[in-house]
């Protein structure tokens, strides 16, 4: 086969690339990016949520020409970004409560509509606790009414702000302050938790997508796509948490990448409830490689460890790979 002349060293896997046409480069590669979440915030070292929020909001700011308003559920993101007297946000932003971000978003969108300012767009955002647990009622209502709000969930798989307690997004076997690493089946139980992207799809809203902080171009493309649509949209971003996962602060992006490459976290898009695209696994790896660097899974390893639970997690990943066709046909 003959090489396409457009080939470049790193493709779009890196944030930028001097060989890429400027319009193909990521928002984050640009010195003009809005840095919506500014320096000086109090997030932990290597915070995936701080990263994911800046990625997403900066992309939305570009997509809307900075005509954007954000509302935030209670949680790490809110606490570390706006402790009086300082805020890190560079766009109009409001925090109301833990469970009502989606509804506040609805209210803002309604106000903008009635004021004839619909060119200003609304994003509601929160962590997995504020989204999958306490905020699910308001979120589902927002979906069902198809309000003109993009809701972004930054999923770090537990209540980190309060000291790492289990949420309904906590994965099986994961240790938290409320799912101990003891007993025959330590950690969070299997066959539980919520798959919010699928729940969102069940509302048949215009757009649902998942993404991770490991694939910036994918995340930005999805935000841009979402901002190009009207109505209720949902973006679920996996954001590793060094504190809660017991991982090294420099492994944040690596773990997000492994979550995708193992099939643990399927990355896909759905329009009106139908899956329309999946991001294929590039270098498939066993779940071991993803779980090992996280102390929340430490009890699965060593002796005696829990090989049977590892097998169950691998089976879950394989199920995702089948269900979402995460491998090229040839590999699958």
């Amino acid at each position, binding site marked *: 086969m003959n090489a396409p002349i457009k080939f470049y060293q790193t493709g779009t896997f890196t944030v930028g690339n001097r060989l890429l046409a400027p319009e193909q480069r990521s928002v984050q590669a640009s010195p003009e990016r809005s840095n919506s979440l500014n320096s000086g915030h109090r997030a932990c070292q290597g915070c995936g949520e701080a990263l994911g929020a800046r990625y997403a909001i900066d992309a939305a700011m570009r997509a809307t020409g900075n005509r954007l308003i954000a509302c935030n559920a209670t949680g790490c993101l809110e606490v570390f970004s706006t402790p009086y007297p300082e805020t890190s946000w560079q766009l109009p932003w409001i925090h109301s409560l833990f469970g009502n971000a989606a509804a506040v978003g609805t209210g803002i969108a309604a106000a903008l509509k009635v004021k004839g300012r619909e060119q200003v767009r609304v994003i509601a955002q929160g962590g997995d606790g504020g989204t999958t647990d306490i905020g699910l009622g308001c979120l589902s*209502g927002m979906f069902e009414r198809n309000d003109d709000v993009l809701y972004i969930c930054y999923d770090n798989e537990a209540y980190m702000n309060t000291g790492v307690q289990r949420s309904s997004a906590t994965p099986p076997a994961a240790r938290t302050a409320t799912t101990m690493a003891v007993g025959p089946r330590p950690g969070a139980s299997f066959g539980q938790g919520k798959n919010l992207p699928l729940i969102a799809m069940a509302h048949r809203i215009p757009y649902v997508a998942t993404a991770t902080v490991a694939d910036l171009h994918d995340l930005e493309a999805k935000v841009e796509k979402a901002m190009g649509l009207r109505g209720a949209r949902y973006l679920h971003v996996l954001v590793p948490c060094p504190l809660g996962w017991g991982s090294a602060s420099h492994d944040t992006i690596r773990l997000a990448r492994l979550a995708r490459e193992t099939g643990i976290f399927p990355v896909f898009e759905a329009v009106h409830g139908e899956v329309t695209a999946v991001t294929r696994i590039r270098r498939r790896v066993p779940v071991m490689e993803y779980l090992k660097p996280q102390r929340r899974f430490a009890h699965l390893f060593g002796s005696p460890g829990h090989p049977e639970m590892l097998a169950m997690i691998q089976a879950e990943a394989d199920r995702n790979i089948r269900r979402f066709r995460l491998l090229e046909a040839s590999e699958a």
Partner: protein
Amino acid sequence: MLKQIEGSHAVAEAVALCRPEVICAYPISPQTHIVEGLGELVKSGALSPCEFINVESEFAAMSVAIGASAAGARAYTATASQGLLFMAEAVYNASGLGLPVVMTVANRAIGAPINIWNDHSDSMSQRDSGWLQLFAESNQEALDLHIQAFKLGEELSMPVMVCMDGFILTHAYERVDVPAQAEVDAFLPPYEPRQLLDPAEPVSIGAMVGPEAFMEVRYLAHAKQTMALERIPQIAAEFAQRFGRASGGLVRAYRCEDAETIVVALGSVLGTLKDTVDEMRTAGVSIGVLGIQSFRPFPLAAVRAALQGARRVVVLEKSFSVGLGGVVSTDVRLALSGLTLHGYTVIAGLGGRAITKASLARMLAEAVADTLQPLTFMDLDWRIVGRQLEREAATRRSGPIAENLLRDVGAVASKVR
């Protein structure tokens, strides 16, 4: 324009005259007819521009209102009872953020046992939420108070609850004078938010405030309510001057001049009380009524001024602080601190128990004779209570109280008492 309509529809028309831009609706008796009425007005285009949003809960209703208000829209919602409790967190949030949402509370009891009828337990439960709380005596006043509430709340950038008795007012057909749109427009200027979510001038609203500034924030909220003590009478006066009706204000005295006994109350029971007092006056009893229109801010000075001439004060209230007694009485007592006069707390009408002129007359006669219990439960069926207490004394656990009581009462379908 005079109309013979249901209280709920009178309020719906009043709210519509205030040109709300976002209305959040969630059904709960006895508030439902209000948002239904507004829904029709939006659907028909009579109220426009306005976003009418059918939310999935009261919690969402208040949350949507918060977002709308922060984004510069005039926001309204209505609720009652369990609904108010379900939105409680957002209720505190709206006032904490200083967002001038106006909300009708069609006062209703709080369960368990579940009970849809009227008393004041619901709004009283939110008395410390930082909201202003105005109580309506009649449907006319309910209508008028909503128009005043938007003006008051938006001036102070504080949310306002307009409380009207569920069913007794909301479902009562009576004569109301509905003002013309032009009159209301002249009285109520468009909403100019104190803070606004606007890309042209970004701000972060709702910061986390630590010990170093939290008390100050709270004090400033209190200072606003103190300001309201001045503004409420002024606004009521301006309203009277424009619309030719006395509505709202802090308190309203009826035949209190030189009265030895003054009955203090809120809401629709004031009407029945006035009739009762008239008859007692004819019988030569020196008695009057003090109606409290503004429960929050609580007009300590005005109440004191109105009561200090009397020899005894009877606080008749539809709210009850279990383990203590009266809720309103506590505040009235504070207003009277230092004064020596007989004070009675009368708990009445809980869960919709009818408050009749006869019972009031009987109770007030005892009060005038100073034979009334300091804490009186009007028309309480001691027979039933007695039996249950006996059972209690006999064995510690004797089954759910409500069921036992019903067994004692027997089936009393819609028997009129």
